């Protein structure tokens, strides 16, 4: 929905994320394809508020940079 996306479930620790080194593991893993590389930071970020809180992004991240929270509407 067109809610203002102020609290996305997928949180990326930009200090740990190595997407700027070429890693796309979380972006490849996401079934809903909601993750992208932020053009400004070069790090993974959540672009679409369509998370199924299924966790492949978090489990597969080689640097443990991702934490998925339960979406607010369900919490």
């Amino acid at each position, binding site marked *: 929905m067109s809610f203002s996306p102020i609290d996305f479930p997928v949180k990326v620790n930009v200090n740990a994320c190595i997407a700027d080194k070429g890693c796309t593991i979380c972006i490849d893993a996401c*079934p*809903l*394809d909601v993750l992208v590389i932020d053009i400004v930071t070069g790090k993974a970020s959540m672009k679409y508020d369509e998370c*199924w809180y299924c966790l492949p992004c978090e489990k597969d991240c080689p640097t443990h940079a991702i934490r998925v929270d*339960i*979406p607010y*509407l*369900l919490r």
Partner: protein
Amino acid sequence: MTTNRDEIETDILVIGGGTAGPMAAIKAKQKNPALRVLLLEKANVKRSGAICMGMDGLNNAVIPGYATPEQYVKEITVANDGIVNQKTLFAYADNSYAMIEELDSWGVKFEKDENGDYAVKKVHHMGTYVLPMPEGHDIKKVLYRKLKQTRVNITNRLVATRILTADDGRVAGALAFDCRSGTYTVIRAKAVILCTGAAGRLGLPASGYLFGTYENPTNAGDGYSMAYHAGAELSGIECFQINPLIKDYNGPACAYVTGPMGGYTANAQGERFIESDYWSGQMMQEFYQELAGGKGPVFLKVNHLAEETIANIETILHGNERPSRGRFHEGRGTDYRTDMVEMHISEIGLCSGHSASGVWVNEHAETTVAGLYAAGDLACVPHNYMLGAFVYGKFAGESAASYCANTELAAVDAIQIEAEHERVFAPLTREHGLSPAQVEYKLRRLVNDYLQPPKVAKRMEIGLARFEEIRSDLQKMFATNPHELMRAAEVSFILDCAEMAARASLFRTESRWGLYHYRQDYPESNDVDWSVHVQVKKDTDGKMSVFKRPLEPYLVEPEETEKNVYQQLRIQPSQGELHEF
């Protein structure tokens, strides 16, 4: 606007790389290594589908020493109120053990006892069929490794939207677009195997969150819609999927996992009210009544169990299938040791893996369209769950491989290709309009309002009229990129499923399958007129037709004492401790 275009040629195209799809591709390639087999996935095969994070057990394993195929066929015949094609159930049951052994040899881990035998548990009303997989989190990795070994071609992030058909009605391939680059792809194929999973984004979850579904929300009913437009028959669509789930989280409470350890579904007083936690329409009816009644709501109860048992339950439930569950409980301060877990019933969906609604297939996974096969949650083999997806994936792959031996690629029809391009890409050409999420929200809210059981004719008729309005809204959808275009395409799949669900439900003027098809205006079952399949098909004039298909004669007739077992699920107050069937 110009679209980049691509054309791919293959022998067999498998659409959907979750559970059934990889198996179908592997088995087709093993049957004839010379064939070109392409596995197309909307997400990424490594982590796609209902089992993207693994699975905690086989719900319907027929393992020698515990059950026979005959017993299983009888159980599911009774559980699905008689409306089954027993040949398809029997083929599943007869091949399920060999499939378990093969998966085991590939590295999938099943629970075994101290002797190395499969540790099968009893959850169903009659037989013993549940094989836990406490270490089932690696199943996608195992499948992926096997796909690579077998040299199956894989393409990810392609959204298939229509099956291409030839003049004679047989399959000619499929049309798809890339949800990142937007490239429009024509795939020529001799055979297509649909493995796109459930229609999991049909009803709107009570949370209002579009993606807070029980099924992986990637599964929007794509295959139901594609099969329909290709002219295939669909069956049992009125037998909805409604699940007893953890409230708001909308994931399974997993009474199948906890049941054998002593957990159960309870009312607010902590009392057990159903004899068996195996999911069926009748069980859902009792669940629904308890939920809405004076002893409601309903809970999963494990807080009476020992610490070691609870710790074990946590390890399994928070490490497999839906691992974010632990996080959800934590956020609400729910502890299995002290608290019961609040449950509710889900919004509706279509899924033969759990109930019975799907694309009609025979025991070779053939649909009614030449060259089109289906397997998994979208293929009508009632209650066939994950193991059924593997078994029918195997059938589909092998059947398609045989079909290809005597078939040439059909000519593709440029008119179909251009019409689909125009239909699918139109939202990108508009400068303003409705966002796909808005249309989807409204459509799924209407599904709840008009199709969620109990069902009534007038309500469903109004629903159909509102769905028609949504159909014209599809022409106003606006997308700014290929990702949003994917969501727009999915809205049309959801709408097709909603219309099929309404029409099939209106057609069956009786009640059956407990809550799944409870008609308030026809509250009784009518075996004389309605011991039939209800089929949905696109007519030659493009209209949706609904008709009866007679039941095939049973291979195994359930005993008189077994026939009503699923009608008597509620624990009777007068009942003693001992209950015999």
